[in-house]
């Protein structure tokens, strides 16, 4: 129960519940949950690295922006991402380095259009962090 994600039923879309000891780990779990719905990596190809820098008004908006940025990278760079290194995370700013492999003989799991703001949350609860994001699929 220390770190992880869970997909939650929603009629037309998919909810993702996230938890971890730090906000950084919650962001990383969000990315893993997202790609579990997009495409499983084969981890055999040449790796490519992309640096991400984002700003938002609040930390939970930053969480949604982070996932949307990863979708943008997947579609435009055609990279299946599987390593997410959050290097700096503040209330309004994120810096990360993500690693993926070129989309090739992967089996696409379906698709995600975007991370929505509906019921979006991110908060510290005692000694751990929890988040929720609803994905439009």
């Amino acid at each position, binding site marked *: 129960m220390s770190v992880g994600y869970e*997909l939650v*039923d*929603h*009629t*037309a*879309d*998919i909810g993702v519940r996230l938890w971890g000891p730090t906000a950084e780990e919650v962001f990383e779990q969000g990315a893993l949950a997202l790609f579990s719905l*997009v*495409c499983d990596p084969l981890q055999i190809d040449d790796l490519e690295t992309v640096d991400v820098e984002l700003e*938002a*008004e*609040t930390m939970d*908006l930053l969480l*949604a*922006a982070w996932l*949307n940025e990863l*979708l*943008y990278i*997947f*579609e*435009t760079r*055609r990279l299946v991402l599987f390593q997410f290194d959050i290097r700096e995370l503040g209330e309004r700013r994120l810096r990360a380095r993500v690693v993926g492999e070129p*989309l090739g003989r992967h*089996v*696409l*799991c*379906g*698709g*995600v*259009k*975007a*991370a*929505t*703001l*509906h*019921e*979006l949350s991110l908060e510290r609860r005692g000694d751990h962090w929890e988040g929720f994001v*609803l994905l*439009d*699929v």
Partner: protein
Amino acid sequence: MRVDRIGEFVYEIPPEGAMRVPGRVYAHAGLFDQAGHEEALRQVANVATLPGVLKASIAMPDIHWGYGFPIGGVAAMDEAGGVVSPGGVGFDINCGVRLVRTGLDAVDVRPRLEPLMSELMRRVPQGSGPHGALRLKEGELERLAEEGAAYLARRGLATPDDLAHTEEGGVMPGADAAAVSQKALERGRTQVGSLGSGNHFLEVQMVEDVIDRRAAGAFGIRAGQVVVMIHSGSRGFGHQVCTDVLGRMAGAAARAGIELPDRQLACAPLGSHEADQYLAAMACACNFAFANRQMMLQEVRGAFEQVFHGSWERLGVELVYDVAHNIAKREVHEVGGERRAVRVHRKGATRAFGPGHPDVPEDYREVGQPVIIPGDMGRESWLLAGTETAMRETWGSTCHGAGRLLSRHAARKVRSGAEVRRELEGAGIVVRTASVGGLAEEAPYAYKDVADVVGVVDAVGLSRKVARLRPLGVLKG
């Protein structure tokens, strides 16, 4: 929350709390047994709190729990004092449906259905990411975003007839590519002419039953005929446009200390810079979607030419109509006895203008606008016509589809994709898909019976049944 039944298929949520107008839901009594219906009704009430909302926050019988607006939601905002909300359009801006008629009958097509579906699969990319048929050079995507399907007409990829039979003539006014982010342009560059994933599809169908002969005649539809239905939207281009603006609007609301019932309902006053920028970018995404579906029509024409050895003109592969079902449009409607410009948000709802309306193509004007309602891939879809009642009651709007019943996860637990494929093939439906797993999520039982949804809009008069269509071949996104 109180919900009063005010007609056989009409329910009202009286204003309470911050609601400025009542909620009005057109539905079958079965709605109240559906999982997630309370959340969906809460979303109807949330929309009723938006500034400038006129008359009522409306929901169609395919209502279900969405984000921001409910799916099936319709609301018109006053041009003076009202707002535009990207949450009332959604991420897939101008997701919509296009119906194509052919001069062929099911008996002609059945023997060649397997090669036809394979050819369609080869020509129309499915799933997230892959490249569409159109290659665009620097600057061309910007032109396409501003000119929509008319841009394709200039390149010989659309006929004047195609444009005349597309909502807005295939060109959404007010588009300005300068309002679109580089990211959206990058995502869209390779995606014109691609289906996408999720519930998007391309189906070869047959006209099983004609209910309204006069309207069907005007639409060029007859029993036994083969038609093609395409359901897709603005792909990554539209998703990015919505993502960009929503973060800005929600951030601005947080800064100003404004409490929204749902941040997905973030909005901006009509006439403000923020609203103008969104509307200019949204119009570009609408144009992208019109062009996307037009390119797929071109591929459908190519596939028919290849498999049935003749020109598409001779084979009669012609566009019946193309409708948007995620959009916010400036339209003139009657409010309090006078004609006024309002901003109609349709989120999972279809424009359904009645007979005589100048925006209905001339050849259909006597019978009303064609309304295309996709069902699920095992049962049926519908062709309807718009009505005068819709103009009076729902800002000229009707339902948009069957509406989900089971979540994707729940649907996967019922049967595997391979089993769903076998069942469909057992029923004589040829299936092509990039994602067999996705097939399980989109199985017929995951959806309400579209006949119930169409039954309600027909009974209350929001549109009129014209023809029932049955799938022969399915290409799933």
